[in-house]
C-alpha cells in the first residue's frame, strides 16, 4: 500500500472497533480473518484496522459475554475458530448503535454550521 493510501485512511476511535465487530457478526458467525476483511470491504478501505488488533478486541467481547467462540469448519473444509453473537451481544449492539447515532448526529450538528458560514 502506498503512503498516499495510508494518509487517506482513518484510525479507529477507541471502542468503535467493538461496535464494528458486533455489527459484522450480526450477519452470522464467522472467523477472525473474515471479520477483518468484512470491516475493510464494507468501509471501502477507509477504516484502517491493523488486522492483529482485532484479536484483543474479540477477547474483550468474549469476556463481556457479547460474543462466543467455537470450533467450526469453513469453506474448503478448513477447521477454524468461529465467533458468534450472543443474545446479550445482540442487545448490546442495539444500545451501541443508537449511542453511536446520537454521537454522530451531535458531531454533525456541531460541524455543519461552520460549513454554512464558509459559504454565505
Amino acid at each position, binding site marked *: 500500500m502506498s503512503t498516499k493510501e495510508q494518509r487517506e485512511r482513518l484510525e479507529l476511535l477507541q471502542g468503535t472497533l467493538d461496535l464494528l465487530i458486533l455489527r459484522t457478526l450480526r450477519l452470522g458467525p464467522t*472467523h*477472525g*480473518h473474515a471479520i*477483518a476483511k468484512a470491516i475493510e470491504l464494507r468501509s471501502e478501505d477507509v477504516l484502517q484496522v491493523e488486522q*492483529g488488533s482485532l*484479536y*484483543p478486541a*474479540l*477477547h474483550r467481547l*468474549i469476556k463481556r459475554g457479547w460474543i462466543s467462540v467455537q470450533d467450526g469448519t469453513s469453506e474448503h473444509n478448513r477447521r477454524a475458530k468461529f465467533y458468534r453473537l450472543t443474545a446479550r451481544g445482540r442487545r448490546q449492539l442495539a444500545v451501541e448503535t443508537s449511542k453511536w447515532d446520537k454521537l454522530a448526529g451531535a458531531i454533525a450538528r456541531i460541524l455543519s454550521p461552520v460549513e454554512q458560514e464558509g459559504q454565505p
Partner: protein
Amino acid sequence: MSRRKHLMEALDQDIRDHIERETQENIERGMPPEEAHYAALRKFGNVTRIKEETREVWSFMWLEQLWQDIRFGLRMLATNPGFTAVAVLSLALGIGVNSTIFSVVSTVLVRKPPVKDPDGLMMLFSRNVGAAGSGDYASRSPVSPPDFLDWRAQTTAFSEMAAASSFEDDLHATLAGGSQPERVPSGAVTANYFQLLGVSPALGRDFLPGEDQAGHDRVAVLRADLWKSRFGADPHVLGQTVRVNGEPYTIIGVMPDTFRSFWMFPEQLWIPLVFTPEQLSPAARAQHSLSVFGRLKPGVSEAQARSELETIARRIAVSNPETRKDWGANVLTVQQYAIQESNSSTALAFLMAVVGFVLVIACANVANLLVARNTARRREFAVRAALGAGGFRLARQLLSECLLLAILGGGLGLVFAEWGLHFLRGAFNWNEWSILLAEQLSIDRNVLWFTLAVSAASAMFFGFAPAFQISRRDPNAGLKESSRSATVGREHHRLQNFLVAAQLALSLILLVGAGLFVENFIEEMQEKPGMNPHHLLTASVSLTGANYKDPARQAAFSQTVLRQLAGIPEVQSAAISTDLPYTFPGSARIAVEGRPVPKTEKQAQSAYFAVSPGYFGAAQIPLRAGREFTLTDNAQSAPLAIVNEAFAKKFFPNENPMGRHIEITHPGEAASGSMGTIKWSEIIGVVGNVNESVGQMAPQPQVFEPFLQHPDPAMMLLVRTHTEPTAFAPSLRRAVWSVDKDQPVTSIRSMDRVFHDSEQGDDIMAELMGAFAGIALVMAAVGIYGLIAYLVGRRVHEVGVRMALGASKRQVLLMVLRGSMRMLLVGVGIGFLVSLGLPRLITAAFQDVHMTYRNWILAATPLAVILVALASCYLPARRAAKVDPNVALRYE
C-alpha cells in the same frame, strides 16, 4: 483458568489461520509465496505484542507478569552480585536509620496507652492564664484537691473522674522489712482509678468505693513486676501486710505487667488517696498536687469537655478570687499529654528529616547505579522491544527489579534497625522517663508498616527516572548504536550528574547539622560547672515514718548522718542539700527590704536550696564574700541567707548585698507580708555561680538557707572522697542505716554521673547526627566513585584514541577530573548555601538550644566533602590514565 488456557491455544491457532488466509489471498493476487507471507505478517502487526495484549484482556495477567518480572528480576540481581550488594546495602542503611528513628516516634508519639478506649480518656489540668510565655507547663499544672472535687461534682461532660497524687519524687513509697528498705515509685489514687482506666487486676481486686475514705484506706495494690521481685510472685501475697512509709497496708491485688507498658505510668504500688481536712480547706486550692483523669461521656467531644471544664473553672475563680484568680482548666487526651510532656516532638521531627535525607542519598545512589546498568543493558532492552515488549512493559520490568531491591534493602534495614534500637536502649538513660522509654522501644507493627511503605516509596523514587528513560527510548537507536562510537552521548549523564550533585549537597547539609550539634555538645562539656564534680558521691534519702514528722527530728537526723560520715577515713568532707547542682532545683519568691513588694505573681523568683554547714566546701563552690553556714545557724538563731553572684547582680546591681535583708517565700506559702510581719533573712555570704542544667545560657540567681533552719525530709547527701567515689557507695549506705535502718538510700550516683545525666540526651543527639552524617558522606562517596568509574569505563576507547594521538597520562587524568568538577562544585555550593540557614532553623526549632555558626564548621565541612569527593573521583581517573592505548583501541 483452564478456560483461559483453552482460549489462548485457540488464539494461537486463530492467528496462524488468519495469516495463512491472508497469505493465500496475496498469492491469489499474484505475489510470490515468500513475499505473500511477509506482506501478510506486516499487515497483521506485531504477533507477540498482540498475543500479549489479548492475554491481558483476561485479568490475573498482571499477576502472571509480575511473577515473570520477579523471576527475571531475581535472575538479573543474581548475575550482578556487585551491583546488588552495593544497592541493597545502601538501601538497608537508608531504610534502617529511618526505621530506627521511627521506632522512637512510634513509641513516643504514635502508640496509645494500654488503657480501655484511650481516645476517650482525658487528662484534666489547671491552666495558669496569667503566666504568659512560661511555656506548656503553665497549661498542664496539676489540680488542687478542692478543685478536683468541685470539677467532679459539677461536670456533665465526663462520666467519671479519678485522681492520682502526681508523679513526683515524694510519692515514692518506702517498703520496710526484708533485707533492706526499698523505695518504689508509687501513687495514691481515688478508688475508681483502675476502673476508669479500664485495667483489671491479674490477682485479687482493686480498690472498692469507700476505700479512699479515712479509716478504710489501709489497702495496697502492687504491680506484677514488684510482686515478682519483692514477693517472689507468691500467690498468697493477698492479705499480707506491707509497710508503706512506715504505715501498715494490706495487699489486696496485683495489677498486670501490661499496665507498665506505657512510660506515663511508672507506679509499682498504689494506695487509696485520702484527703486530709487541710487539703480540703479554701487555702488548699493553691496546692496543685493531683493528676486528674476523666472518661468522656459517649458523644461528647474533647472540645465540648474543654469548654465545660473551663466554665466550671471560671465559676470557681469568681467565688475564690484570692487563690483561683488567673486559673482556668485544660483538657488533653492521655496521648496528647504524653506527647507534650515528653517534649521530644521537635527532636524527633528533626531526626526524621535527617534520616529522610540519608534515605534520599541512598536512593540517589541506587538510581545512579541503575542508570549506569541500564545503559549497559541498552541492547538487551532494544532486542526485547523489537521482539514486542512495550515501553510500559519494559518500564514495569525495571520497576519490579527495583521493588525486589527495595524489599531486600528493607529486610536488611530492619536488622540494622534492631541494632540501632539496641544502641538507643543503652543510650536512653538520663532520667526515669528515658529509662522507661528505652524499655518500650521496639520494632512494633507501626514500624513494620512504615518500613514497608518507605521501601516501596524508595523503589518508586530510585526506579522511576531510569525506567522512564527506558520507556521513552527508541528501540532502533539502541540496535543501531555501536559500542564502538568514540564518545558517549551526553543525555544520560545529565541525570546522573544531577543525582551526584544532590547527594553532595545533602551530605554537606547533614555534616554541617552534625557539626553544629557536636559543637554544641562539646561546648556543654567544656562548660565550667562552677564546682568540682570529681570525687563526689551523691545519694538521696527521704525520711518517712511518724518519727520524722517533726522538723527538728529531720535536722537531728541530718547532723547524725553527717557526723557518722565524717568519722570514715575515706571521707574528705560531707554535706546535705535539698537539691543537687545540675538537677533542676526548687524555687522561691524574693522580696528585698526597703523596696515595694509587688503582687505575688509578679514577684521575682530565684532557685532555692537549703544546705547544711560545709556544703560549699564539700562541693568546692568558691565563697566570694562573707562566710558559710555553721552549726550555730540553726532554728534558734536569726534567719540567714547566702546568695550566688547571679542573684547579687540581679537583685543588687551595683550594690553590696552583704548585710542586706531579703524575704524568701516558698511555693505554696502565702507571702508573710500580707500577714503584716515579714521574716527578713540577712545575707551573710556570696558564692560563685553553679549551673542548674547543662547548656544553660546564663547563670541563674540562687539563694541558700541553712538546712538546720529549714530542714526537709527529702535530702541529698554529698560526700567528697579521697578514693573512687562509686566504690564508697556501700559505706555510705551503712552510715545512713547505722542511724536508721528503715530509711532507703537511693539514686547513688557520682557527681560526674549527675552531670552526664543532665545532658538530657544532648549527647545522643550529637552522636546520632554524627552517625547519620557519616553514613550520608560515605554513601555519597560511593555514589561518586561509582559514577566516575562507570564513565571512565565507557570512555576507555576514547582515552585510548587520545593517548594514541599523544595525550599524556596527566592530561587524561585532568580531563576526567575536570569533567566531574562541575557537578562537584554545584553540589557543594548549593549544600553550602542551604546550610547557612541551619543554625537559625535549629535555634528556632529547639527552644533550649542556642546555635551559632562556628567558623571551623563553615570551613571544615565543605572542605571535607570536597576532599572525599575528589578522592572518589581520583581513584577511577587514575585507572583511566593507566590505560594502554593498544588495549583500549582493540577494546570492544
